[in-house]
């Protein structure tokens, strides 16, 4: 037995104290009656004591029992467990429409997705409900959506709404679905094939551990499926190469593939085809063949980008593999921007007519490093440090600050705004003076925690020939290995990194290049502790200087506000107002600065005036594309944090099997009324007994002769 409203029942049961309290208060209020015939009263009491005590206890018991029954009736006493017995029942069917639910099932039902099977199962559940039962529907594929909630008695309409449920490319999130069920006493039935992609990887424990959840049994067989887990272009912003009408792109894309299902134990080849998707259309960008060894679930391949006749503009590079059980995960994409040229502002003063290398300043060296050849993809423009202007800087992709000492405080604020707008700012120490008094205004402008020395230190150091694998200079790993040992460092600006990331360090471990992105959607701030000056090091004279500076600028430009990636079903904060679809299959919407995509795809983001802001690439989450079969124990263990108890919904069985549960339902429907009736009968019995015990009729009868006597 359990209670639907335990608080009400508790209050009602507490009311049992009322008759006792009344009795106690009543006793205290009375004044004693002086009585002469006390002897006879005691004798009468002695004769009646047992009967009176019995009557009093019986009356008290009847009163308490009546109140108890009313409390239980009000509290909704039900037979059996509260979660499986109710009257009427509230059932919420949670349907898995996540990425894995799109997998097409085995041969006997070829072409039918797991989602279709779950919708059919949901119809069966709804059909098995009683006439007074209520049903709701929630889809558990991210983003979780309440199709019908709170539960409705219009089961036919609910069944029709099942037709509108479509699969998403998001992960399966049963915890979020159960969290939507905020009312107690509602049964939850989760319908899923429970293949590996539908099993929640990690669920926050304690969401509703007391809830009993009924689960559809897991699919018995896995499905062969390969997934494009990741597409990582070497550069996300690439300048076009070549003149005239035929422009080419020189870059490459790393593609990660994963597979699941019965074919894991076999060798497998998949052809990876790259496409460049832009507003103007989709063009092939190369292909390659990836191979899985036997029992290998993950492989990578680097595919060169080969685009014939590329056009500048925002877009995505998309990798597609051959069809298998799941279609949505057969392609993934990454933002890619093709540029005619990269606009770079070199902030410094260049002296003209220099003929001696020894007299070159930092501005000169940077100018050479940034544009070693004309029309090499970089449009370099010299800007005076004392004349920094917001509108002027807005036109540049990158700002290279060669003479920070000449920047005013207002100039630092202008630079900070430019970074906030998405530009790259690379700061080199001032080589013309020992005092580096620009450090403090820069730290203030960018709110840096890093500690920067005011003067360079004399050192004898070299460049560590390794860079971070996920850093700005990752693509420079080969050059660093070859060229870095030839560089010697004599002066260096000591910097404590604070919150900055060390991209390149010296052999002695001193930071050489540090970077930080002040805000998630801002550009990158890069700080070099080494000035390009021969008094500091011989780097300007070494071959490493050009690839190092080029890589800092080209890679630093990428990943700014214009290029966003995300996963289907996840929340992505954007500053855009609208989306412009690049791929027809994608399904996403922006609401209140948040982009939520149900289906993977690529979109151009636009601001309120319709201007293109950037590109967003949404992919299917690779872990959710698993198609391995799971057993019941595994499923129950994965769901343990969100379901205190797990029941299984057998295929040929309704949520609760027919006869027994229906009779229990009927009993539960009538139980409160029965309790009320019994309480009413007890009340009548109590009244009669109280009247009999108190001899109320005798009292009235005795008043009659007195009146006559008067």
């Amino acid at each position, binding site marked *: 037995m359990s209670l639907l409203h335990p608080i009400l029942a508790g209050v009602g049961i507490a009311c049992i104290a009322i008759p006792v309290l009344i009795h106690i208060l*009543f*006793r205290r209020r*009375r*004044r*004693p*009656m*002086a*009585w*002469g*015939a*006390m*002897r*006879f*009263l*005691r*004798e*009468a*009491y002695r*004769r*009646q004591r047992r009967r*009176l005590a019995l*009557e009093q206890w019986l009356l008290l018991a009847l009163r308490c029992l009546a109140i108890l029954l009313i409390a239980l009736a009000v509290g909704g006493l039900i037979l059996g467990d509260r979660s499986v017995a109710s009257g009427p029942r509230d059932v919420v069917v949670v349907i898995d429409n996540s990425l894995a639910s799109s997998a097409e099932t085995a041969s006997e039902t070829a072409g039918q997705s797991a989602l279709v099977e779950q919708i059919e199962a949901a119809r069966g559940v709804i059909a098995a409900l009683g006439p007074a039962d209520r049903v709701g529907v929630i889809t558990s594929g991210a983003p979780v959506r309440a199709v019908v909630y709170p539960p409705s008695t219009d089961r036919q309409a609910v069944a029709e709404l099942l037709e509108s449920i479509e699969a998403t490319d998001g992960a399966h999130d049963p915890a979020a679905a159960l969290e939507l069920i905020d009312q107690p006493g509602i049964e939850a039935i989760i319908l899923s094939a429970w293949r590996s992609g539908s099993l929640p990887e990690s669920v926050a424990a304690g969401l509703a551990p007391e809830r009993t959840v009924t689960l559809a049994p897991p699919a018995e067989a896995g499905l062969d499926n390969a997934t494009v887990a990741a597409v990582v272009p070497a550069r996300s912003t690439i300048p076009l190469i070549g003149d005239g009408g035929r422009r080419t792109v020189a870059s490459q894309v790393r593609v990660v593939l994963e597979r699941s299902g019965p074919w894991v134990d076999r060798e497998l080849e998949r052809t990876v085809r790259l496409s460049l998707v832009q507003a103007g259309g989709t063009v092939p960008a190369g292909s390659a063949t990836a191979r899985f060894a036997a029992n290998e679930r993950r492989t990578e391949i680097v595919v060169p980008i080969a685009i014939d006749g590329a056009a500048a503009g925002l877009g995505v590079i998309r990798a597609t593999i051959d069809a298998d059980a799941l279609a949505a995960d057969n392609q993934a994409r990454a933002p890619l921007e093709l540029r005619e040229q990269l606009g770079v502002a070199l902030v410094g003063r260049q002296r003209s007519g220099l003929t001696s290398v020894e007299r070159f300043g930092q501005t000169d060296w940077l100018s050479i490093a940034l544009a070693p050849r004309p029309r090499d993809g970089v449009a370099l423009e010299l800007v005076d440090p004392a004349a920094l202007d917001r509108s002027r800087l807005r036109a540049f992709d990158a700002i290279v600050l060669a003479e920070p000492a000449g920047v005013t405080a207002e100039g630092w604020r202008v630079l900070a705004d430019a970074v906030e707008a998405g530009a790259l700012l690379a700061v080199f120490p001032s080589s013309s003076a020992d005092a580096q008094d620009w450090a403090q205004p820069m730290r203030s402008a960018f709110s840096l925690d890093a500690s920067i020395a005011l003067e360079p230190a004399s050192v004898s150091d070299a460049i560590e020939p390794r860079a971070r694998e996920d850093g700005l200079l990752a693509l420079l790993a080969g050059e660093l290995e070859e060229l870095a040992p030839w560089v010697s460092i004599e002066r260096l600006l000591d910097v404590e990194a604070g919150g900055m990331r060390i991209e390149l360090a010296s052999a002695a471990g001193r930071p050489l290049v540090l970077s930080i992105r002040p805000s998630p959607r801002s550009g990158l701030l890069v700080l070099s502790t080494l000035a390009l000056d021969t008094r500091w090091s011989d780097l300007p004279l070494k071959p490493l200087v050009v690839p190092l500076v080029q890589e800092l600028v080209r890679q630093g430009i990428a990943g700014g506000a214009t290029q966003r990636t995300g996963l289907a079903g996840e929340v992505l904060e954007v500053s855009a107002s609208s989306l412009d679809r690049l791929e027809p299959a994608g399904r996403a919407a922006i609401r209140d600065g948040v982009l939520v995509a149900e289906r993977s795809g690529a979109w151009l983001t636009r601001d309120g005036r319709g201007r293109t802001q950037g590109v967003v690439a949404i992919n299917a989450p690779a872990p959710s594309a698993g198609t391995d079969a799971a057993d019941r124990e595994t499923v129950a263990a994965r769901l343990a944090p969100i379901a205190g108890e797990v029941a299984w919904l057998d295929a040929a069985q309704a949520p609760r099997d027919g006869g027994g549960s229906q009779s229990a339902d009927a009993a539960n429907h009538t139980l409160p009324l029965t309790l009320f009736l019994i309480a009413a009968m007890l009340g009548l019995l109590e009244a009669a007994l109280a009247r009999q*015990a*108190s*001899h*109320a009729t*005798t*009292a009235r009868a*005795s*008043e009659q002769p*007195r009146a006559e*006597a008067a």
Partner: protein
Amino acid sequence: MGRPACVLPCVASGPDSVGPWALRADTIHRMPGDRKDEPTPGPQRGQQPQGADATLYLHPQTLARLGSMDLRAKMIVEGVTSGAHRSPYQGFSVDFAQHRPYTPGDDLRHLDWKVYARTDKLHLKQYQQETNLDLVVMLDCSGSMAFGSRSFREASGAGRDTSPDGRREWAKFDHATALAAALSYITLRQGDRVGLACFADELKAMIGRSSQQSQWRQIVGALSMHPVEAPTQLGRAMDQLIAKLGNRCLIALITDAFGEIEELKSALARARHRAHDLILFQVLDRRELDLDFASPMPFEGLEGEGRLRVDPRALRKSYQRVVEEHLAAVEKTTRGFGFEYVRIDTHDWLGPPLAAFLARRNAQIKRSKYG
């Protein structure tokens, strides 16, 4: 239990007090045939104890009912003066009683010569000697007599809402003192002697028998001043009373008789043994008989029996049965000794039952006298 004794009724103090003890002229009713110039037996104007109000005890209506009655003893009691009551000592007075054969030694003066002339046998004439009635009012002053449920205003007929001591209820003791006063009044009017004995657990007060007119004043004064206290021990009090009575008397025992039957039986047996006549006036309050209360409440005994919380409605039947059993036992015991038993309800006027009792008693006397 330490219950303080109450005084029924209280004595007003001070010479200037008016009201309760100021006797009004119209409250004294002369009997038919009385001469106006003869002093009326009993209370006289100006003779009341200072502060005593006889109207509280001798209601005018009661006196009106009793005025035409003569109190006569059922039995022949021994009197010290001649009166209207027959003496058990057969002598040679006025009323002829019977003849008896002569035996040697008899006084020849009492020979009936006429019988001797007619029958030639010697017989003596015997006469009945009339004697006075000695009435001793034995009044129960125990704590249980303090109970009353009738309003004082209605019962006293004196136009007062409360008793002199502030009670609004007419207690059984009030009714008992009224009865005692009525009996004393009638007895004194007949020229007989009357005395008063107040008792509870022992004899508390005693006024010797006298037929003097000042006796009324003493009795009323004692009735009005005596406190009500202590539990009842009738046997002990009867012993003490009988020890003080030198001759046979009519004892008017006025009590609620709530004590044990065995004790009552013992007391009556002693009175019977000493050849006293006795009339038991059992004074009861109607509420004591009905237990007519509507809600549960604690009851506290007036004689220190402690407190008992009961629901009177639940106990009523059983209580009435117990009371009826007791009353029947009292009556049966009393009549078993050849004594009269009269039940008096404090909610009734005192006159009608008392008058009915006297009428029945006179009838009995006449039947026994004239066959």
